[in-house]
Structures are given as C-alpha cells and as structure tokens.
C-alpha cells in the first residue's frame, strides 16, 4: 500500500512537471508573437488584478467553510477532489470576471487557436469522466474518485464558454460604428 501511495505521488509530480512544460509550449503556440507571456493593456491589467482579488477571496471563503466541517465527518470524496474544487472555483471567478469585463483575451492572443485548445481540453476531460463512469470507477465504496476532477475541469471550461458567449452577444448589442 505504501509503495502504491509513493508511486502515485511520484506519478502525480511527474504529471504536473510534464503538464507545466506542455502549458509553456501551448502558451507560446497560442500567442501570435510566439511569446510565452500574454500581453495586456493598462485597463485589462487593472481588471485582471480585481479578478485575482475576487478569486483569492473565493478560495479563502471555500477553505474557511471547509474548516467548519467537523473532523469526525467523512467527506465521501478523495482528498484530490476536495483540493481541486477551490482551485477550479478560483479559476472560474478570475477568468469569468475577466471575460465579462473584456480583459481575458490578450493583445497577442490568437483567439482561434485558443478556442480550439479549450474545446479539445474540455472534450478530453468529458471523455475521461465518461470512461470512468462507464467502468464504474467514479465511485468506489461510496467515495468519489479522482476522475470526478475531469468532470469539474470540463464543467469549468463549459461555464467559461457560456460566459464568453454571453459577453459576445452583449458586445454585439453595443452600438459600434
């Protein structure tokens, strides 16, 4: 069992490292000038700062609420699921706020590539979730397993997509000559 836990932790660390490298490559690919850093103008930077503040408060509030759960209470989910909920909530708050305020898309972002990437990531996560569900690997002994994180990730992208679409339709309504 200890070997399994160690192997799992090492696997997770390697996965995160590979994920970071991939994220850097993807960020370069998604920017028109192939720079890793996305450029924002002064208003976007100000809005993004407010978004980070709200996301920070969201994570703090979630963790504070989690502290209210008695130690004796067993949350029927793997710890990784519990940890990912505030992460995704924070991302939704920050990104959702920025999308709504027009500060999400950078000056050098290739929107077409970004949208393709977002759709592909959502689908991969949805399929991973459904595969686990089909194989009865989603809930084991009444405990929510890691694949639930895939669903959270896919839902996160879906929520951000909906906010983006609403923003786009609101933009179209604006008088622009």
């Amino acid at each position, binding site marked *: 069992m200890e070997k399994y836990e160690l192997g799992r932790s090492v696997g997770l660390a390697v996965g995160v490292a590979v994920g970071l490298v991939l994220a850097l490559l993807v960020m370069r690919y998604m920017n028109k000038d192939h720079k890793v850093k996305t450029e*924002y*103008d*002064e*208003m*976007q930077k100000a809005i993004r700062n407010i978004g980070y503040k709200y996301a920070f408060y969201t994570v703090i509030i979630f963790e504070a609420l989690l502290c209210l759960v008695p130690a004796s209470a067993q949350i029927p989910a793997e710890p990784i699921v519990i940890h990912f909920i505030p992460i995704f909530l924070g991302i939704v708050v920050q990104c959702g706020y920025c999308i709504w*305020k*027009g*500060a999400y*898309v950078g*000056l050098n972002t290739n929107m077409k590539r970004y949208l393709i990437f977002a759709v592909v990531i959502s689908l991969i996560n949805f399929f991973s979730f459904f595969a686990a569900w089909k194989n009865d690997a989603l809930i084991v002994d009444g405990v929510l397993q890691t694949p639930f994180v895939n669903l959270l990730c896919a839902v996160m992208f879906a929520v951000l997509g909906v906010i983006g679409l609403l923003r786009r339709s609101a933009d179209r309504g*604006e008088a*622009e*000559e």
Partner: protein
Amino acid sequence: MKNLRLKAARVGKDLSQDELAKLTGVSRQTISAIEKGDYNPTINLCINICRVLGKTLDELFWPENET
C-alpha cells in the same frame, strides 16, 4: 461621463473602435470603455490616442466646462 468628443474624433477619422485600438496598442474593449466613461485612461494612453487622432489633450480629455 461619456467621452463623446473622443467618439466624434474617431468617427471623424473614419476609424472603428477596433482600428483605433490597434493603432494605439490597446484592446477594443478599452477604447469602448473610455468612450462610455467606464475607464479613465493613463496620461500615456491619452497622449497615444491624441497622436493617432491628431487632437490635443484639451480637445479630447479636458472637461468641457473648464476649458
């Protein structure tokens, strides 16, 4: 407070918000927010906009009743 003088100057130059945004190095949303009075730009951005539109700071950004 809406900045109608900026909008008029932009339209006078036959520029869309998107075109003015590209010329000044900001997003279209930022130009839209300035015109709607939702965002107060920094002096550097004001100068950039004035240069592109061929106007002075007074003409575009100084309150009308104080000029």
